[in-house]
């Protein structure tokens, strides 16, 4: 096991010994049936999501090795792809749950089959410790918990070993879904506490490298910057047994190499494949590779206009720009068709609460010019369009096309490419980019949740510095309101209507989250967190 390749130690020496000499690894080889090779752009930097500085790719570790009280269900889309179902909440560690009549107390019954890797049962104390940790450590976990109205440890009560309660200041439709996101994962508190120190009461140093969970997979190897390996937890009983025994997630920074590996069969699954590749890879390989994907819920690729900078404070200018975006070209050249159009809506008044929905703009340079005239800027003006180097794959062509199109109505645009590290500071924290491309997506699939983050003044993703008292009020009123509430539809329609009219953010399209995989790989579903949930994956042997 130590230095030999592990397949060998598993008794498939014959297949493996000739591997290096083959042109590519035969995926269908018997030995690989229960091993899944995944290629990803970025590596993980921690096994603990609550730790400060934990990056996005690390979320998937939490998803796969830890359990939560509840999880989202999975639905089948029209094209046969699988995707999570934001409307369906399923039990995980919680066997069942009840909501008090005033909606302020949630009581969970813990499944006796829920066992940590060390064999001890999952208790309400573990859950309380874990939730306390999530709200206490600050940073992103605390923010996300807050979205579910969970801010203080005294909201979490371990009634007895098998009963756990959450007290809410007011009822909210967001609490239960918020328990299904990666953040409120359940840690083996006995193990963690034994490693805690006075300086580090939440054992962040220990859990950073040594997970202590109950999930369907364990991490058996982690080479930072290179790869990590999951191994199936054979004792997991909180769902159908995962179809693969071992998953190798390999970090491959170059997109073309990732594609080549997948095409050649050296990798089974390629998460987050660029639109162009997902369009081509199926035909190129003659069906040996398939693509599964779904539009990302509550996510939009937008052109944001910063109202703090003239002339974007002028609504006519914003509308003019909305009419001057070459939507069709962008969808073709930047999204390669893998996007739902968010333009060409019919009416300035929304007819449904569906979100996202097409905005009532389309490429119409005449109208744009007229609006620009009305705004008192017939000659146009000069500005800078910034985009994120890390997302250059779609943002650069988009920016170039916008630049060219705006030139036609007299707006001279200078492009500014900002490296990933500075992007968040410039765009979201300092909010100092006059015109930029943005791609916020809300984990909780409600329009008001999107508006909460992206249209409320001062909120992180409102990089436009948009401020509208009516929106503020509408969002506050609606955020925790149940969907079935009478006022819900009215409020949401009004919000969307204002967004149509004011266009501080001009939506271009709703992106797809695509994954390419070898034909024998099944059960892939796209998730709101955009990470791989390996529990549902199966791999057929040939």
């Amino acid at each position: 096991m130590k230095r030999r390749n592990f397949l060998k130690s598993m008794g498939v020496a014959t297949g493996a010994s000739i591997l290096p000499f083959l042109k590519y690894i035969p995926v269908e080889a018997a030995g690989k049936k229960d091993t899944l090779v995944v290629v990803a752009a970025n590596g993980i930097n921690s096994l603990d999501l609550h730790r400060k500085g934990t990056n996005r790719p690390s979320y998937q570790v939490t998803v796969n090795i830890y359990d939560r009280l509840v999880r989202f269900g999975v639905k089948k889309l029209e094209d046969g792809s699988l995707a999570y179902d934001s409307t369906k909440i399923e039990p995980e560690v919680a066997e069942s749950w009840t909501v008090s009549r005033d909606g302020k107390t949630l009581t969970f019954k813990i499944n006796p089959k829920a066992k940590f890797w060390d064999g001890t049962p999952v208790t309400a104390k573990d859950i309380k410790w874990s939730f306390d940790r999530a709200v206490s450590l600050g940073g992103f976990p605390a923010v996300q918990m807050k979205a579910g109205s969970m801010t203080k440890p005294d909201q979490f009560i371990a009634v007895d070993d098998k009963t756990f309660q959450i007290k809410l200041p007011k009822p909210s439709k967001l609490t239960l879904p918020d328990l299904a996101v990666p953040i409120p994962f359940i840690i083996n508190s006995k193990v963690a506490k034994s490693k805690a120190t006075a300086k580090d009461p939440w054992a962040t140093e220990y859990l950073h490298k040594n997970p202590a969970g109950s999930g369907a997979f364990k991490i058996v190897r982690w080479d930072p910057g290179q790869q990590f390996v999951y191994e199936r937890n054979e004792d997991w009983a909180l769902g159908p047994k995962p179809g693969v025994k071992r998953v190798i997630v390999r970090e491959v920074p170059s997109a073309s190499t990732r594609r080549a590996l997948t095409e050649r069969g050296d990798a089974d699954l390629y998460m987050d494949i660029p639109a162009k590749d997902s369009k081509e890879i199926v035909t190129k390989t003659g069906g040996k590779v398939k693509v599964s994907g779904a539009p990302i819920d509550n996510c939009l690729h937008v052109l944001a206009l910063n109202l703090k900078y003239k002339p974007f404070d002028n609504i006519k200018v914003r509308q003019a720009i909305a009419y001057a975006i070459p939507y069709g070209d962008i969808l073709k050249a930047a999204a390669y068709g893998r996007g739902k159009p968010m333009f060409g809506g019919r009416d300035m008044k929304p007819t449904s609460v569906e979100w996202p929905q097409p905005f009532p703009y389309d490429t119409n340079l005449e109208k744009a010019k007229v609006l620009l005239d009305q705004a008192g800027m017939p000659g146009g003006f000069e500005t800078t369009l910034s985009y994120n180097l890390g997302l250059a794959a779609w943002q650069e062509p988009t920016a170039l096309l916008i630049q060219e199109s705006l030139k036609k109505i007299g707006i001279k645009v200078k492009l500014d490419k900002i490296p990933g590290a500075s992007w968040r500071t410039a765009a979201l924290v300092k909010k100092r980019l006059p015109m930029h491309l943005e791609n916020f997506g809300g984990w909780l699939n409600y329009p008001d949740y999107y508006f909460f983050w992206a249209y409320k003044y001062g909120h992180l993703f409102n990089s436009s510095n948009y401020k509208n008292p009516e929106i503020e009020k509408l969002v506050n009123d609606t955020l925790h309101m149940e969907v079935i509430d009478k006022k819900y539809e009215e409020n949401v329609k009004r919000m969307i209507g204002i967004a149509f009219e004011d266009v501080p953010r001009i939506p271009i399209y709703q992106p797809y989250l695509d994954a390419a995989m070898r034909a024998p790989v099944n059960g892939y579903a796209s998730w709101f967190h955009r990470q791989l949930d390996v529990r549902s994956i199966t791999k057929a042997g040939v």
Partner: protein
Amino acid sequence: MLQAVPSIFGVIVISFVLTRALPGDPAVYFAGAMADKESIEQVRQALGLDRSWVEQFFIYVGNLAQGDWGQSLKTGQPVTEELLKRLPASLELTFIGLGLAVLAAVPLGILAATNPGSWVDHICRLLVTAGVSLPTFFTGLFLIYIFYYLLGWSPSPLGRLNILYLSPSHVTGFYIIDSLIAGDLEIFLGALAQLILPTITLGLFALAPIARMTRGAMLGALSSDYVRTARANGLSKSMILLTYAFRNASLPVLTTLGMVFSFLLGANVLVEKVFSWPGIGSFAIEALIASDYAAVQGFVLSMALLFITVNLTIDVILAITDPRVGLEE
């Protein structure tokens, strides 16, 4: 050795200032996707970035003195650990690249020097100049495209070993050596196969300076008085070429090798990126993009130390080869 101290100090100061001047705010970057202002501030405090530069600098130098190079924010590991783990990968690549270059360039240089002005000389020169004119990233990409993607002759350009293998147990950190120590021919061949394309890419780049220097030094040696003496005494051609001319010519070539080596170590930043090589170069690029201060500083510092070590080694070799070195007044 002592003379290097000011340079190292200079490197520490410059790298510190440079990293602090990076536009990215690590606190924002590492606070996570949905972090609000408050949580960003918390991260900032936790990282010690709320202090003044001067304060941060003294803390950094103090930590360095204690052997603590800090922790990489991006990978969450201590920088020293990261570097030590990745350094053998870069060194393995660079050494073999350099080795290939030497194996090709020295004979080319000798060949050119023994026939100066002939067509052999010109072909060598064109070949070598073409090598140095190729952007490494470009060469790497096309080698991958042709030999991996189109022809399928080389293994996937994915780091040091095929994904299905576990690395050999760590002795030197050089896979091809460790696998031999472990007696595992299979892993040895696997690791070797991974090395071919990136080392060729690097080697092509190193060809020119070595060949050029070999040619020049050989020309000088061949037209020197002592070679004339050797010829006047009827020594055999091979004796003249190797013992008399080449051994003397190897001295400047050796000095050049030191330069080329440090140069390659820096240049393989791009090669490592193209070949997903888990070396310190790719580590540095990512750290730089992520404003990962400790990692960038650690990388630069380790490179400076390496640079000094390499030069020292070359000095030692020179002192062994050249009796004049070290004995002069």
